[in-house]
């Protein structure tokens, strides 16, 4: 079952909490503003460059404007990618056996490797619980604003065998561990995940959310 269309950390059909709703609208607003500025910069730079070429004046100004236009185009692409759902493991399919569990139960999933030649040797499948917690951070004007940070609460990983095109994985949920929660100051989210570990970079990964009852 796919994840929630607007909240990838939730299974489809789950109601997001106030914290999730707050962050979604804030992130969307930021992406729209930054994306708009970047796109406007690109258009202005391109117009100036076109004008310079038309006037037969491909001088230093035109080269600078071209460079600026390219920078703005890259910035726009970067911002668009920030807004897109994290993923990046198109050669692997992760399918949970179910999307709802209780603490202490066994979570099962199937991993299908569609292109073994693209599979990193260190690729692994895991069950992870994330916490999203609100903190007060400086707004740069002497005041503060609310922000949400995230951290891993619990995780378990198993290696994926590149020679096996289809593999079954099982993870035992801790009986006394955290359960799924959508809140205002704190949210807890469980997910099945496949990742290719990277040093000093964000791991390419495919996530599938599951809901864990108390």
């Amino acid at each position, binding site marked *: 079952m796919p994840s929630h269309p607007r909240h990838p950390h939730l299974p489809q059909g789950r109601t997001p909490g*106030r914290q999730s709703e707050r962050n979604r609208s804030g992130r969307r607003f930021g992406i729209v503003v930054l994306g708009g500025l970047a796109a406007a910069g690109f258009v202005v730079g391109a117009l100036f460059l076109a004008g310079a070429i038309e006037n037969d004046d491909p001088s230093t100004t035109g080269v600078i404007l071209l460079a600026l236009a390219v920078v703005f185009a890259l910035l726009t692409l970067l911002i668009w990618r920030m807004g897109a759902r994290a993923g990046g493991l198109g050669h692997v399919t992760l399918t949970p056996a179910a999307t709802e569990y209780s*603490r202490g139960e066994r979570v099962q999933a199937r991993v299908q490797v569609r292109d073994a030649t693209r599979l990193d040797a260190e690729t692994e499948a895991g069950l992870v619980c994330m*916490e999203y*917690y*609100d*903190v*007060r951070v400086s707004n740069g004007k002497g005041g503060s604003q*609310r922000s949400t*940070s995230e*951290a891993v*609460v619990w995780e378990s990983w198993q290696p994926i065998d590149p020679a096996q095109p289809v593999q079954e994985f099982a993870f035992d949920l801790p*009986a*006394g*561990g*955290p*359960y799924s*929660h959508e*809140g*205002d*100051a*704190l949210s*807890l989210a469980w997910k099945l995940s496949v990742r290719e570990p990277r040093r000093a970079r964000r791991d390419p990964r495919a996530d599938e959310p599951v809901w864990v009852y*108390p």
Partner: protein
Amino acid sequence: MSLRVTIELPAGPFVAGEPVRGQVTVRGGDGIRGLEVSLVQVEWSKDYEAVGRREPPQSLAGGPVPDGRQLPFELTLPLDAPPEVQTGHGGLAWEVQAKADVRGPDAIVGERISVSPD
């Protein structure tokens, strides 16, 4: 005398569906217009706290409360009350909350209880 509300509870832990009995003691309660207790599920992070769920309150007084009066109460944890959870940056827990309706901001005090799985 300024208003002081305290909650006394037996040691837990409690389980879902179990009654929670205790008493509220009031000092300086001349200005109280109403006093109630309820069970609430609270969540917190390092900098913020919020009420995630509030059970129906029990009214203990509808007007001024004599100084030192002890008011017993009995609340019942809901059958689906999730147990407490503590993470590295926050947690979820239940507490008995007493709210005194007074002129100006209400006086609210809470006392955490431990709720364990069945």
